[in-house]
């Protein structure tokens, strides 16, 4: 019983981590954010129970692949902040991934018999505007 609970938690974490990259891209689609503000936005939009530090590997990967652009901006509230925004190629990729995500969600709905009025992926695409 204890193991099942642990396995369930692990799967949920993996699922969230998988989706997190898409969610990050969705937030950075139109607005620039630094790590902390990005986490706050994600937390406001939905349940973010992942550790905050997990956002940085994602940002680093996106930056390395040229999907986001970053710049340091001085802050009057403390140390400088590193802002990120999605590049053009990042936006294109997000659009493709978002469509793919919608189709995956509908696949899960069919198989699992889940009833959703609005696919999660569509929520992401709606939010970018």
């Amino acid at each position, binding site marked *: 019983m204890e193991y099942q609970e642990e396995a369930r938690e692990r799967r949920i974490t993996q699922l969230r981590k998988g989706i997190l990259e898409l969610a990050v891209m969705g937030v950075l689609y139109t607005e620039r954010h630094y790590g902390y503000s990005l986490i706050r936005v994600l937390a406001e939009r939905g349940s973010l129970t992942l550790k905050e*530090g997990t956002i940085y590997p994602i940002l680093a990967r996106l930056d390395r692949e040229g999907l986001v652009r970053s710049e340091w901006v001085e802050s009057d509230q*403390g140390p400088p902040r590193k802002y990120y925004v999605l590049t053009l190629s990042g936006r294109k990729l997000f659009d493709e991934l978002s469509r793919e995500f919608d189709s995956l969600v509908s696949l899960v709905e069919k198989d699992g018999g889940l009833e959703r009025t609005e696919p999660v992926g569509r929520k992401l695409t709606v939010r970018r505007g």
Partner: protein
Amino acid sequence: MSNYPDVAGKIVRDYMERVESHLGLVPGPEREEFLREVDSHLYEAYQRMPGEDDVARILAVLRNFGEPAEAVSDRLPKAMMNSGMKRNLPLHIVAGILIALFGIPLGFGGVAVLAGILMSLAGMVVAYFTATASLLMAGMFFFLLALVRMYQPDLWDRLISLGVIQMDKEVALIVEEMTPAGQGFLLILFACVFIGAGLGMLWLGKHLMRGLRFLLVLAFDRLGKLARNTRRKLRASGWGPMRPWRAHSHAENAFR
């Protein structure tokens, strides 16, 4: 490093050192930038964390941020690849071949020399205690002969006639001049000399063993220190595995 109250600052410093220890293979500028970013995040999260207790606030911030390993996980594979590429690969291949050709045979030679030294030392110890045991046994034998000479003269004569006891002609002539009791005392004297020598060697053997044990402990201690220093230097130069956690840090304890 941003401005924190004393204890909170110490906890953050420990945490940042742990993050930095994970970034040993990441190139300097990239490492500095990432550390600045984490520092900025922690400071802002700390400023916005509600509560009165500074320590509780910073620990909550670090708990929310997660383990350093999670935050740096995506940087290490690339850094490792870069690290390998930055070093001169052909030079390392040549070094590897040289080590295979000369280093390994020399290593075996070194092990053989070490084994030889250890075996010779063991042989010396065995020979020493064998000689000690021989002296003690010889002393006891002379003592037994003395008793035979004094209390069982018939048995003594029989042993001489059977050839069990033999003496040089000159020695026999001198011994013949002495009384049986005198011969017995002479044998007891020899017995005392041998037993005394044996006991003396046994006493010295105790010190010999202590000396050898000291030498061995010293030698292995020096070898251990040499190995630890080499490992530390290799780790510092980025060749060895990074030690993931610093011991006894406040931030580490916060996650236990």
